[in-house]
């Protein structure tokens, strides 16, 4: 666990960080993001003492890092920089094994560990071990950089814009790779980037920084849905959420207060309720739990409205959980979709419903125009 406590920093009397407080739990993937000059890299480098803190404390697992010798602290965490920062005069194996060598790991053990790490980043050891950095592509160099960071099996890994110099395809590959490695080894990763898509893809929490302060630190989903202020809204971009439909959940587009009815009521009461509210279906619930749906078309021809409605409840309808994402919902709709989709909790408690029109309205939001223009209220568009 890393605690950043009330941190201040300025360069030549120009404030860079002004009162940073942040708690990073073990196993989190924290992404620090913001425009250049916002202090994100400075903040990252304070964690391994590459940049001294003017005021405040960095505390790792309860120990202020002021009390830890620089080299010991740094050797206890991985560090990855842009383009890998490999030593050009050393082979891949020497680069990865550098700290192991310094800390006195035996040659045999070291070689075995290097091979293991190369396998981990999917570079076959027998063909890559003895190459020099200049013989590798940018992506391969960065894989070696990542392998080096994992070499001493650190709890914490710091990554300073590691993928920003790579082409989009390689970048995406490496993002997947680091995401996989983080999940597998549950490292605490602090990752600096200026690429919001990268942040959304990787982070468990995104810390958006602006002029030396953290303006919002939250999950990607919350950040996209509830930007803390205009700055964040502008920074993440208007359509960002819609580029990530997996973050739009059923509960975000559902209508609440569905029209419900108990199975003990009669058909007459049901028809009456439909007429009053101009709907063609009712959701049947018992103690708040969804039991099924009653559709007008199924009961229209029934002569006797006095009988209980229980018999006519159809259970073949689909419902969705509140956290089912938009992508999945749309994928499950067939062309004949009409009516409503109930939204339930995992305990089958009815929370709301989605209608065709509601869905259409939600989808249309991503095409919000640049400026507010007056809508034509009638005529043909």
């Amino acid at each position, binding site marked *: 666990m890393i605690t950043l406590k009330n941190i201040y920093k300025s360069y030549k009397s120009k404030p860079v960080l002004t009162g940073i407080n942040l708690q990073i739990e073990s196993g989190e993937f924290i992404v620090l993001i913001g425009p250049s000059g916002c202090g994100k890299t400075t903040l990252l480098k304070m964690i*391994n003492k*590459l940049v001294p803190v003017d005021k405040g404390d960095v505390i790792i697992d309860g120990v202020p890092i002021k009390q830890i010798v*620089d*080299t*010991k*602290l*740094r*050797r206890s965490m*991985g*560090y*990855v*920089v*842009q*383009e*890998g*920062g*490999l*030593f*050009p*005069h*050393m*082979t891949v194996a020497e680069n990865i094994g*550098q*700290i192991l060598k*310094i800390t006195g790991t035996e040659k045999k053990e070291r070689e075995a560990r290097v091979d293991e790490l190369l396998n981990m980043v999917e570079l076959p050891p027998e063909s890559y071990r*003895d190459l*020099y*950095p*200049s*013989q590798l592509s940018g992506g391969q160099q960065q894989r070696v*950089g990542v392998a*080096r*960071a994992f070499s001493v099996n650190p709890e914490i890994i*710091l990554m300073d814009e590691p993928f920003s110099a790579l082409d989009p395809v390689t970048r995406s590959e490496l993002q997947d790779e680091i995401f996989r490695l983080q999940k597998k080894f549950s490292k605490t990763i602090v990752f600096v980037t200026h690429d919001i898509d990268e942040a959304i893809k990787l982070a468990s929490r995104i810390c958006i920084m602006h002029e030396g302060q953290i303006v919002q630190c939250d999950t990607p989903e919350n950040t996209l849905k509830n930007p803390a202020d205009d700055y964040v809204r502008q920074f993440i971009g208007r359509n960002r959420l819609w580029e990530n439909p997996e973050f739009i959940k059923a509960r975000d587009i559902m209508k609440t207060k569905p029209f419900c009815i108990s199975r003990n009521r009669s058909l007459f009461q049901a028809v009456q309720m439909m007429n009053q509210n101009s709907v063609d279906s009712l959701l049947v619930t018992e103690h708040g739990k969804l039991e099924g749906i009653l559709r007008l078309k199924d009961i229209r021809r029934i002569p006797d409205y006095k009988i209980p409605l229980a018999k006519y409840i159809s259970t073949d309808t689909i419902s969705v959980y509140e956290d089912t994402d938009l992508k999945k919902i749309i994928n499950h709709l067939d062309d004949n979709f009409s009516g409503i989709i109930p939204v339930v909790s995992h305990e089958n408690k009815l929370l709301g419903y989605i209608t065709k029109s509601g869905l259409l309205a939600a989808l249309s939001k991503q095409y919000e125009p640049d400026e507010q223009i007056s809508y034509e209220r009638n005529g043909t568009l």
Partner: protein
Amino acid sequence: MNAFWELFLARKAELLELFIQHMNMASLAVAVSLLIGIPLGIMITKNKVVADFVIGFANVLQSIPSIALLAFSVPFLGIGTKPAILMVVVYALLPIIKNTYTGIVSIDPQTIESAKGIGLSRWQQLVQVELPIAAPFIMAGIRISAVTAAGSVTIAAFAGAGGLGWFINLGLNANNPNLVLLGAIPASLLALLIDYILARLENLVTPEGLKPPEEINQVSRRKRIFDKVITYGLCGGLFLFPIVYAAGEQLQRDDKIITVGTTNFTEAFILGDIYSELIESNTDIEVDEKFNLSGSIIAFSALENGDLDMYTEYTGTALGNILHQPMSTDPDEAYQVVRERMAVDHDIYTSAPLGFNNTYVMAVKPATAEKYGLSKLSDLKVKASRLRLGCTVEFSQRPDSLPKMESQFGIHFKDVKGLEGNIRYQAIASDEVDITDAFSTDAQLKKMGLVPLEDDLQFFPPYYAVNLVRNDVFARYPELEPLLSKLNGLISEEDMMEMNYRVDIEGMNSKTVAHDFLLENGLIR
């Protein structure tokens, strides 16, 4: 070409010795430069302002003329190897500092950043990352400075430290291009050899990973090991040899030793050789020769601080330039003042005059002498206005020379040209000037058959040669006093001019000439 070959054969033993001296001084100077330059180059990488200052300072040092630097350093360091090496170091330092600095600061900041970030200590970062990556740069700097050193060590000869500059200097004095080449060619060859060896070393220290990707690991392991053995062997030799050699010299060194010095022209060398052989042949004292010191001031300060035990000087020079006494044109008076002041103020013994007076004379071609009826200096009072003077710049400027001639005797020449050394004689030979200043024992006077004008005005100060000896020398070696005095009054102007002629014009070795003189006078057997 033939003449050069003969010269080479005649002097090959001496050449070898000078070559080794030369190489040793160059190696030592480079070693010192490395010890200073590399740490300094590393230290200044931490601060741009300091770096600019240090590199700027090294630049300035390099722009100081070597002779000026020599004049500055002799009072502190004395003469011999020390000031010579200091000078070479001053010139060799800049490329090493600069390249070490540039090599380190031009390393990719990401590399340094990650070296720090993964937890290398400052020292590990330097040794394991910065120095290996900067090695090719640093090596290139060392190469430049070693080649510079091999060339600039020729200056050492001016501080009495020998080396190949000795031949170059002899050749310049005697107007003998072959002798100059005998010094210059081996010096250049040495520079090329050093360059070749260090180029191999540069290639070896270039880390494999810093080569272009297509060249990495293209050389077989075996060849690489072979290369390493050869190159490291050669470099080791280059640096170890001077140490072993110096140690050997130290062991051989006799307990009884005397240092004989000379200033930097032919006559001084001959006199030095005469004393040197006189002592070595008649006593068991070993002579350490520190010849070719550039000027009386340097030689005298070396004598005072004990770097030299003796050297020959001229009364006029001692009086005016060293003791700063009013100039006397009376030879006896001048000698007495020198003798007394040397003894009282400097604890230095002045021998009786050796005989000849190497003073200024005005000299003309016999045809000119006849045409204008010139034989005495006083004749110029009337005739000067029709004569064109070609003289050294010094002669035209010194208050006791031309200016005094003009003010005191109204001697005004038709034209005055400031010319250097041998060019005066060429100018008079080709009739571009009619009259020149000369030294009375100058070999060129004899060669060209010039007529010296008798100094009936007692115009020029006396320049009688005397031997200056530290008093403590006679205390250590009492046998030297009677021995050295055997030369007093023995060398006439004709003798001296003859000996100068044999060296300067006939190209003989001054040692041979000195040997012959001693033999003829029965001073050696």
